[in-house]
């Protein structure tokens, strides 16, 4: 296994790099999008609520692979997207729906007295959200949000299906070149753990810190 790793090190690290890049882009993108759609669902505007709801329910209930393939083969006919870009977009949209739900649940679980108190003290809706509700909600959603981030990194393996050059893609290529169907996947699993384990522990640390 060690010789397998050393003889294909450049492929593994290339894949590792693409996986990290895709995950980081999707993480930032899906957090912003997710926060946006969470707010859309709770703003005092019926139309915005419905738009947010439709987006979340549709995207959340389609398999990630289908969303990714849609961008790879359908959208690519109009815009020139390669496998990496379409995979990352799919990952961002898919995760954003889950993050939106997580954040919305967090906002809803902040006691309504907080919001009412803020409003009766003369704060606007946006000010009440920005200075009173959201800071409390963020604390509540950090642990489930951490889970979504870990899922996001694991889900990035969907890039392998659209030739996104990520870790899983490299593992497929190496195993088919060497006929070793076990070693490459074990090595890739270790690479994924290197990313996800520290994140899990960091999230747990934050959780303990915010509990106090």
């Amino acid at each position: 296994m060690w010789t397998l790793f050393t003889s294909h090190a450049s492929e593994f690290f290339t894949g590792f790099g693409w996986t990290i890049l895709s995950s980081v882009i999707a993480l930032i993108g899906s957090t912003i999008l997710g926060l946006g759609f969470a707010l859309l669902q709770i703003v005092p505007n019926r139309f915005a609520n419905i738009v947010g709801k439709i987006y979340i329910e549709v995207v959340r209930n389609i398999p990630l692979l289908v969303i990714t393939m849609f961008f790879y083969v359908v959208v690519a006919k109009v815009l020139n997207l390669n496998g990496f870009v379409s995979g990352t977009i799919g990952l961002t949209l898919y995760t954003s729906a889950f993050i939106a739900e997580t954040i919305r649940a967090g906002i809803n679980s902040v006691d309504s007295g907080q919001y009412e108190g803020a409003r009766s003290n003369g704060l606007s809706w946006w000010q009440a959200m920005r200075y009173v509700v959201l800071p409390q909600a963020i604390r509540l959603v950090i642990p489930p949000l951490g889970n979504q981030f870990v899922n996001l990194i694991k889900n990035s393996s969907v890039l392998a299906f659209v030739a996104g050059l990520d870790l899983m893609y490299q593992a497929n290529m190496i195993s088919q070149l060497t006929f070793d169907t076990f070693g490459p996947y074990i090595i890739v699993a270790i690479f994924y753990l290197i990313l996800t384990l520290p994140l899990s522990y960091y999230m747990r640390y934050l959780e303990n810190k915010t509990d106090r």
Partner: protein
Amino acid sequence: MQIKKVAGLTLGFLAAGLFVSGVATSPVQAETAAKNQTYDRIKKTHTMNWGVKGDTKLMGLTNIRTGKLEGFDIDMAKAITKRIDPKAKPELTQITSGTRVPMLLNGNIDAIIATMTITPERKKVVDFSEPYFNAGQALMVMKKSDVKSIKDLNHKGARILGVQGSNSIENVKKFAPKAKVVALPDYATALTALESGQGDALTTDNSILYGMAVDNHNVKVVGGNFTTEPYGVAVDKADPKLTKAINKAIDEMKADGSYDKLAKKWFNDVPGMNWKEVTE
């Protein structure tokens, strides 16, 4: 405290993984002890398990109406089985380019007849029969494309699509080292990717490309074969008797004309293809 516990568990899992991988590489010794096991079993149980393609037109394809597999490989598998043991029934298992070798070595299937090219690297892992189909790698492009041969793709910025697990990926890198090669999971995805502009050309064996071109009028096969890569039947190295029996069956079929009849049945109607080139 808890962190320590979980870290310990993780290390345990990793260690278990390493251990299993060590075990997985050594079944070769166990197999040599039971030589020709598969051949004897075929004779005893009168069934022969073939790994075949289910997604390749002309070679091995599931007929959507009847649910049955059809193609040149399928007919060859049936004919060879009958000649090895007249009482035997062929069992057909669908495989992909990526799974076929592991499945053969695990004993899930007895032999592979699935558009598998005979290569020196593969010969180290499995035994091959004599060639039964004269294949070669070719290019498929969109009808409006200017690409005429592999030489037109040997420049920076060219993208060539292929399928994971097939040797066409490694081959095309030799003929067009400057082009970027993109590997997709299966032929249907690769064809869709070509149509949506993810690549300038799709490369794989001519048989598969012709099969796709029969139904799809947006694409064309160009430039002829740029490699010679005959297909063979793959058998586990522990079963030399089975390989010999398959070779005998193929020889008999070539001698009595039933092989030509099959080739004509499947390839006579393909536009732009002469069925005789298959049998050379």
